[in-house]
């Protein structure tokens, strides 16, 4: 018989640090990152609780500050909009309504809308519906996932029993399903039409991270402490199956990233470990994974895979990304509409942000935005 002693109480910062997609949320300069879904604009949340918005078309770098904006865990730009940014803060969700043509470097606090709900703090994850209508917010201490109608500030609480709050949210790009990971060894997949859910108990631990294929038919996820990538497939959304999530019976392992030794030109390299975060590019052709090495022995690297979802799912190793000496990858994100292939943005622990392009011809065109390609820069890819 194993007697469970009650776990020690975590402070909000500990909770955010434990559940954040950033590798070292508490100590690193960059805490959160978000690309705008349609233009070459991104927002970076910094250690001093400010947010900077960088735009490739403009030299102005607005800096957003608000008295309620503390311990930013995540950010998300509203889809189908010019510049509305939702920020997950310590006690609330802030929604910034920025003027896209403004040249001001300090937008006033009056531009921020405060969405708060009693007991819903800290907020660790946000997800906008791809159609831009509702915003989901999640907190590990609140068992209810909130569905916000931002313009009227109304929210609906989707509650369930058991399993604790929600730590991580991921909405499938086609808008049909939402992954909601809990602090306990279970995660839920909600279908976004009638808001019913399927419960998936994991064996080993909580769901650490997950990402969807562009058509919403496949979910790749990892479990805390494990080095494998699991895949869960869903029946293709036809719109006639209301109220059913349509998940398959079991998940299968598609990749094992435990420690291995590689022979390289510079000698033997040991790479592998736990997976911290994972992103899939909008064309569905590249998957990037942050692998945390064990303590100081192994470095934290980014592994890139070549993937394909139809007619069969395929996952092939492509290469590894490593930064300069002493720089650990902190956050990764793919550009939402890079027309020449895929663009991976990496935020390093040194405070540098680099963009790594992958040029290929893809069957999928992620979006028909008219913005020019963003600036390409920096570190090399080593195979």
């Amino acid at each position, binding site marked *: 018989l194993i007697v469970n002693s009650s776990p020690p109480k975590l402070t909000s910062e500990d909770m955010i640090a434990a559940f954040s997609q950033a590798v070292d949320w508490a100590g690193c300069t960059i805490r959160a990152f978000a690309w705008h879904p349609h233009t070459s604009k991104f927002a970076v949340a910094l250690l001093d609780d400010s947010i900077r918005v960088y735009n490739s078309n403009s030299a102005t770098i607005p800096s957003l500050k608000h008295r309620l904006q503390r311990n930013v865990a995540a950010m998300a730009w509203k889809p189908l909009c010019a510049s509305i940014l939702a920020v997950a803060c310590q006690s609330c969700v802030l929604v910034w*309504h920025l003027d896209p043509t*403004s040249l001001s470097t300090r*937008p006033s606090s009056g531009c921020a809308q405060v969405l708060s709900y009693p007991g819903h703090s800290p907020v660790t994850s946000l997800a906008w519906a791809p*159609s831009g*209508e509702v915003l989901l917010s999640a907190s590990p201490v609140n068992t209810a996932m909130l569905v916000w*109608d*931002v313009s009227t*500030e109304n929210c609906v609480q989707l509650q369930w029993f058991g399993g604790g709050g929600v730590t991580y949210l991921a909405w499938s790009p086609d808008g049909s399903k939402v992954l909601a990971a809990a602090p306990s060894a279970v995660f839920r997949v909600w279908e976004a039409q009638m808001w019913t859910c399927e419960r998936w108990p994991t064996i080993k631990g909580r769901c650490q991270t997950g990402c969807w294929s562009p058509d919403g038919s496949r979910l790749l996820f990892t479990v805390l402490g494990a080095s494998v990538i699991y895949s869960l497939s869903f029946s293709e959304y036809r719109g006639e199956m209301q109220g059913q999530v349509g998940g398959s019976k079991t998940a299968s392992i598609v990749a094992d990233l435990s420690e291995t030794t590689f022979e390289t030109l510079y000698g033997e390299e040991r790479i592998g470990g736990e997976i911290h975060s994972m992103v899939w590019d909008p064309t569905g052709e590249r998957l990037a994974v942050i692998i945390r090495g064990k303590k100081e022995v192994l470095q934290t690297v980014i592994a890139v895979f070549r993937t394909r979802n139809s007619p069969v799912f395929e996952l092939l190793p492509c290469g590894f990304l490593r930064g300069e000496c002493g720089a650990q990858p902190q956050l990764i994100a793919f550009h939402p509409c890079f027309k020449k292939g895929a663009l991976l943005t990496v935020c390093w622990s040194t405070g540098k942000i680099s963009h790594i392009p992958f040029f290929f011809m893809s069957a999928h065109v992620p979006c028909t935005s008219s913005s020019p390609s963003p600036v390409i820069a920096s570190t090399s890819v080593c195979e």
Partner: protein
Amino acid sequence: AASTPSTRCAGSRSPLNITPLYALSGLLLTDSVVFSVTSCVTVVLLQCSEQYFFLILDSFNDLYTSYVIFCILLMSVVILVISIFNVEFYAVVPSIPCSRLALIGKIIHPQQVIHSVAHAVMGMLVAWCAAVMTKGKFQFLAVPCTPSESLDDAVPQMCLNEHHLFFLLSGAFMGYSYSLLYLINNMNYLPFPVIQQYKYLRFRRSLPLLVKHTCVESLYFVRNFCVTYYFFGYIPKVWISTTMDLHIDSKLHPLDTLTGLLDLSLFYHAWLCGVFLLITWYIVFLCFALYNTTSDPTFAEETDQCLPKILNSNPPLIIKFLALQDLMLLSQYSPVRRQEVFSLSQPGGHPHNWTAISRECLSLLSDLTQRLIAQQEAAAANGRANDVSSLTYQAESEKISLRSNIAPRASMSSLVKSSLMPLKTSPGSDVGSPFSSPALSCKMGILDVNSPWHGSVQSSQVTRRGPKLWTSGSGRDSSTALEAVQPRVIYTWLQNKQQQNALISSQHPEASIQAVFSDAQMHIWALEGLSHLVAASFTEDQFGVVQTTLPAILNTLLTLQEVVDRHFKLPHVSSKPPRISGSLVDTSYKTLRFALRASLKTALYRITTVFGEHLNAVQVSTEHKKRLQQFLEYKE
């Protein structure tokens, strides 16, 4: 594949389903009544069992069993009557009284009087059931008097049981209060939910809030009733005892005294009765609201109406609402039904479905545009009228210039500006107003001070609530501007006259703004449905039916967006009413205009994101072309 054309709907293979009103009402009524009765019977039995668990032993008592059955029947009748009232009074568009006169008119309207009287009677019946079932000292109206010491009265007399009377009157009072709150909070308005959920799940999720809300509300009702009974309790007491020839027991404490009313057990029983009454009525209301506003994914097979026809005819408002909600859902989730919309008729090859749907949606939106323009012109004219009156005054005065008066917005002078701008109102000020958030509703929820939304939504231009420029009752405000002016006798007379007129027919600004946008839910769905269909047509439209209507659609949307943006520059429009969280009563109608503006922008972005540069080939006016370019560059 050409199947036999349906006789129901010309030009489409399978009709888009909407059940006709009478079937809908019947279905809803039966469903909600059955559900309510079941839940109420459960509640009744629970109450009995929790109070007297030896009721099970007593159930063998024939008399008591018949009482219980009779009470249950009576409760079912009450619930049926309440449900009928819900059906008769519901509305999908709230009626917002724009002035004090209108609100008073609403309260004394015969319909409302019938509603209140009926609810008071129902309340009394429910209280009677509860009194009978709790037994003890509440059970009968007439009880034998306490025997006196003297041997003169051989025949025991019947006395009035004041506790029973108290119970009945408290029931009536609660019924009446419920009816009054129903009116004030626009509970007849059925709001449509933010997200779709199954009816049972929605019901289950609302239950905890409902229980908490009724417990608190019952407490307030009992307290108010105790105060009323203290002052006026002797009237019914005397009336009943004279009509029914009952004596008032002099041995017992009369209840309409302070000592009488401080009886805790009485208070507890009255409160419990109130909770029981309110829970049953609110469950009935909740069931009715849920059934009416949740669209069932499995539509009935039997139908003799289809979507394009409904939209083009003039059906009852709720059917139109449900039809537009259905359009919104099919445009997002149903590729098969979208194909129906984009299909051509056989054999003519006309896109009847698309034409009907797009024409109806566009006419709805143009209608809203016209309404907004009319209101803007009225507001501008109002300002000009004030200008005229101040011009006539200027002839009398020698010192001040026109600028110190209430000037129209367009020609506001620096003097007026500087005196008006710094005026800020705290978020609490709106709570006091009897229109947008009546005092009673504050008790029902917690005023959310964490999100004091007294700023605008627009980026850096924060507009705080300035003083009312157009409306009256602004004697206060104009006086600050006029401090620089030396008042003259004629001027003060003019001012008083204005204030008098104003007080009677004053237009409350927030209420009149809400009134213009009261049916905006329809427009929001029309926008979403239309934009999703247009976006989907990029890949799914095989015959190009949508392309020919693109210029009209874009023109309508861009014009509406322009008008809405201009409307939001009027005073008060861009400030949000305070949000009350944790309330059972839905006040989403107060913020519909923000939802409309947001979904209008999203609709335009949806179309421009999907079509991209191809939109440059669409024929629109140069003005609109420039705005479209802004949308394409995500600069809007």
